[in-house]
């Protein structure tokens, strides 16, 4: 398969993830959609690494996985903290910081 197919698939997955972030309002689902976007970026990185025949892109993808794991841990910690304060789990209701 040509590398083009992988890149187009990756941009399609990225667009689906971005659309999910725009549509959904549950913080858990927004985190899931962030995962979709990060994974689309990973697919593009690995595909470009195969395109140039160089493994450094795969290292980059592994570092992205680490960052994604950190983001999930902190995000889920925030969600648990919100839930334990009996606040609604809805990003439109949590607008205290809004100016």
């Amino acid at each position, binding site marked *: 398969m040509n590398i083009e197919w992988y890149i187009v698939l990756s941009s399609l997955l990225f*667009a689906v*993830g971005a659309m999910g972030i725009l549509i959904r309002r549950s913080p858990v689902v927004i985190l899931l959609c962030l995962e979709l976007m990060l994974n689309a970026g990973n697919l593009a990185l*690995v595909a470009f690494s195969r395109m140039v025949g160089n493994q450094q892109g795969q290292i980059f993808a592994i570092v992205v*996985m680490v960052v994604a794991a950190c983001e999930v841990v902190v995000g889920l910690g925030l969600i648990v903290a919100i839930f334990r304060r009996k606040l609604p789990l809805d990003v439109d209701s949590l607008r205290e910081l809004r100016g």
Partner: protein
Amino acid sequence: MEAVLFFLAAIGALGGAVGVVSMRNPFYGVLALIVHLFSLAVLFLLLTSAFVAAAQVVVYAGAVMVLYVFVVAYVGGDTESAWEPIPGQRFLAPLLGAALFIELSIAVLASSLLALGTHGPDVNPGFGDPAAIGRLLLERFLIPFEASSILLLLAAVGAVVLANRKRQETSS
């Protein structure tokens, strides 16, 4: 054979992504994301990057998704209210997503990367296997490797502090 595998994995990845966006119950969304991640691991194998595929299955589909399942089970499958703060958000968002995809496609297809239309160069059998990746990580990319370990530690401590805050307030 490769094309068949690619299209099967691409359909799985795309179906999983659409499932995450469209499932009303977050628990089913997590399950759809697991399908998506396994399909992406197949794509990584097709791109001859065995270690990234293995890490995808072990780290993502194994560890991270278990975390999600626990939190969704703890928080419960909440149903989103039908109230929309921005009128027409549900119709505007797919339009914006489609516009983003078209823009990215134009950027990719109009780029002057000639190697995009090829399979990539022929690589030796050790390309992307754990030995090669481990050598790169511990020799050339040692500092990013150590920095990411510190980042993971910081995130773990931060999550414990965040999730523990209420108990501290009630005790003090």
